[in-house]
């Protein structure tokens, strides 16, 4: 063998060796705590719920899981535990679809869960790609199959995060490394599970949630140029099919688990926007949620809450950053309503709350707000 050929073999062998070292580092540090709870190094957590949840489900103790979209993202687990007397794990996924929520919940329900708290938007049931086509959610890692574990261990990003977490545990450089860990370049900046995706201290709540911003959002989405997007993806038959598959399928398969499901308190402007700019969309949403309410309340292990009619919150536009996203104060309000059983939908009149919401919407006058 010539010297160059030997160099070539040496080059390829060294590459393989370095990869094995990186794999070993990821296995030992285990940033997502897939293989074991953190004990050699301090546990660190990421804001990227689609990735982080795969580890949380394995590493945390819980009897209740909390699922939802961006409207359920900023809740604190400690608040849920305190108000509802449970031991919860927040799994909410920003901008998630029912396909994702169903998949993550199903993985969590393998861990002897007693209760599922579920913030349910109607639009999560729009058509979405299958879970294995979703590049942002590592489905195989949730399944813990060979492909999932290999993609975790052979990930340069995970090796880099592992090295960073390792560096953070070395006392002389701990502080500068922590200072540089912002969650943007290095993805594991959080050292308490309770702090995952909560608003950071000093966050400008009043500047983010106020009537000016929510009304500006209303004007934006009702602009004739954009109002067509209010109906984007809303197809009644498909939404019913997805709801049956992703929500009813899960509920029916777990009769021993209590599902506390709530429709979140959108601001009244969301409904008024549909009334004024896209009445057909409101009709679709009305029909769909009427169907959903009837179906959910037919299950013994489901309690359904409809907070959309909670006018003391939904009519106060200072609670909102746009037409749907409410402030952390309302997070606590939602928990207290759940604890008190307020706005619980009566199985004998599953659409009564929806009709009260419709009456509120029809009576609402935008001109009063503008003045």
């Amino acid at each position, binding site marked *: 063998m*010539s010297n*160059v*050929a030997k*160099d*070539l073999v*040496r*080059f*390829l*062998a*060294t*590459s*393989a*060796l*370095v*990869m094995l070292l*990186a794999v070993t580092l990821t296995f030992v540090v285990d940033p997502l705590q897939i293989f074991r709870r953190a004990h050699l190094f301090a546990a660190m957590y990421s804001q990227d719920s689609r990735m982080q949840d795969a580890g949380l489900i394995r590493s945390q103790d819980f009897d209740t899981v909390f699922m939802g979209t961006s409207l359920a993202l900023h809740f604190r687990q400690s608040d849920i535990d305190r108000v509802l007397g449970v031991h919860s794990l927040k799994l909410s996924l920003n901008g998630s679809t029912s396909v994702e929520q169903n998949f993550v919940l199903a993985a969590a329900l393998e861990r002897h869960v007693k209760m599922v708290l579920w913030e349910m938007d109607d639009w999560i049931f729009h058509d979405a790609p299958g879970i294995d086509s979703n*590049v*942002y959610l590592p489905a195989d890692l949730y399944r813990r199959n060979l492909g999932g574990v290999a993609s975790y261990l*052979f*990930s*340069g*990003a995970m*090796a*880099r995060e592992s090295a960073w977490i390792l560096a953070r545990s070395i006392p002389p450089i701990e502080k500068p490394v922590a*200072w*540089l*860990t*912002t969650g*943007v*370049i290095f993805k594991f900046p959080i050292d308490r599970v309770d702090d995952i995706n909560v608003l950071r201290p000093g966050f400008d709540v009043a500047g983010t949630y106020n009537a000016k911003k929510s009304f500006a959002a209303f004007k934006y989405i009702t602009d004739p140029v954009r109002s067509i997007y209010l109906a984007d993806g809303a197809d009644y038959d498909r939404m019913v099919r997805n709801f049956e598959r992703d929500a009813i399928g899960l509920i029916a398969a777990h009769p021993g688990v209590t599902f506390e499901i709530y429709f979140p308190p959108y601001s009244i402007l969301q409904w008024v926007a549909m009334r004024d700019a896209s009445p057909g969309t409101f009709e679709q949403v009305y029909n769909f949620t009427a169907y959903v309410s009837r179906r959910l309340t037919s299950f013994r292990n489901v309690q359904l809450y409809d907070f959309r009619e909670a006018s003391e919150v939904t009519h106060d536009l200072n609670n909102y950053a746009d037409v749907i996203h409410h402030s952390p104060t309302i997070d606590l309000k939602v928990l207290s309503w759940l604890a008190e059983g307020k706005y619980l939908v009566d199985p004998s009149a599953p659409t009564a709350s929806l009709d009260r919401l419709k009456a509120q919407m029809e009576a609402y006058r935008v001109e009063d707000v503008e003045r």
Partner: protein
Amino acid sequence: MLFNYYPFIFLFLPIALIGYFALGRFSHLAPVIWLVLASLAFYAVSNWQFVALLLASIAFNYLIGWLLIAAQLRGGVRFGVLTIDVAGDLIVLGTFKYAGFLATNLNAIFGAGLSVHILLPVGISFYTFTQIAFLVDAYRGNVARYALPHYALFVTYFPHLIAGPILHHRDMIPQFEAAESKSPNPHLILCGLMIFAIGLFKKTGLADGIQPLVALAFSPEAVPSFEQAWIGALAYTFQLYFDFSGYSDMAIGISLMFGIFLPLNFNSPYKATSIVDFWRRWHMTLSQFLRDYLYIPLGGNRHGRVLRYVNLMITMGLGGLWHGAAWTFVAWGALHGVYLCVNHVWTHFGPAAPPRFARAAEWAAFVLTFLAVVVAWVFFRADSMASALSVLSKMVDPTQGSFGRVEMANMMFVAVYAGIAWLAPNTQAIMGYHHNNRTVGETLGAWSRRPAFLYVSAAVLAFGILGIQQHSEFIYFRF
């Protein structure tokens, strides 16, 4: 198929190499045909619906080339044939790339209500330009007659097909015809692997790593502060460089394994001390194409200063439009046209720096050039003119700054990237790659130094492969 894709690295490339060299033992033509087929397979994996268009383009241009080279046509007829060909190529390119843009503008002006949704064939801008250059040279009488397999390989050669470098037939086809490239050369394969490793690491380790900072300024929901706008603009400046130069390195490295030397596309562009200098270092094969086949035919600098500036503006404006069907790209090109005009005016009329201030002047020129390039990249990256102007307005308004810990920490990461781009030697300097001399790896030093270099570059390959993400395309694929 992408270079940063496991099936490409572990399946396609080894099979292509083995088949090429195995066939090279029996024939000089068979490996060429094998590479054409491999290149078409490479293209078809993610663009199967446009393979027919690619083949039709090759057939059309080869036929016209044959008419210009071999047929005894008179001057006027020859010009007519060339005109038909260039028009044909540009009509196809225009239809696929610019019809939607045209419809959008007609709708905006006349309320025409046109709706055009045409998928862009990947690589069409590159293979169209490559072939136009071939035919213009054929018309000028600067081309010998090439066999169809060699011409087809010149167009489809997979290391360059999708995002360049833009190849020149005089450079490439003689290499495809050469017998020595058909047998494996372990030295070239090793050097090719090392260059590929550097390119892959630039892409997966550097460009993909800084992407989250770009989003601070350019994501649709971003409302950047003063420093976030700067971090985003600077991060994109480095992301684009490491992404595209990484791609070009990978193309050069892959090609080298086949014994084929591709032209350089980058030469540390952010070390430039003028805009003219920048364009000699950035996307060099495009700059050369625009100079030889647009700027000089327009008249170049042969008809006085004013027309020279007009030609520069036209060349750069069209160069911008070549990158994408949007006004932001036109603005980017036009801005660089203005920069070049100012550069030439300054060179002609500006005072020379006194010798004792020469170093300071060079530093000032370097900083000014870099800032001008960053400002232009804002247009290149932004989704709309309004978005670009919004980011730029934030960049000049320090009162909107928060100067918090997160921003300062992020700025530190940008500084690391700047350090690499400004201070580190580039790939060709590290590897001693000389395209014109057809040499590589001769500057790696004595054997005693070589093992360390070998192991470091092996580690770079390992990190590059580990860094591969499922959802990471090369930025220049969409051009």
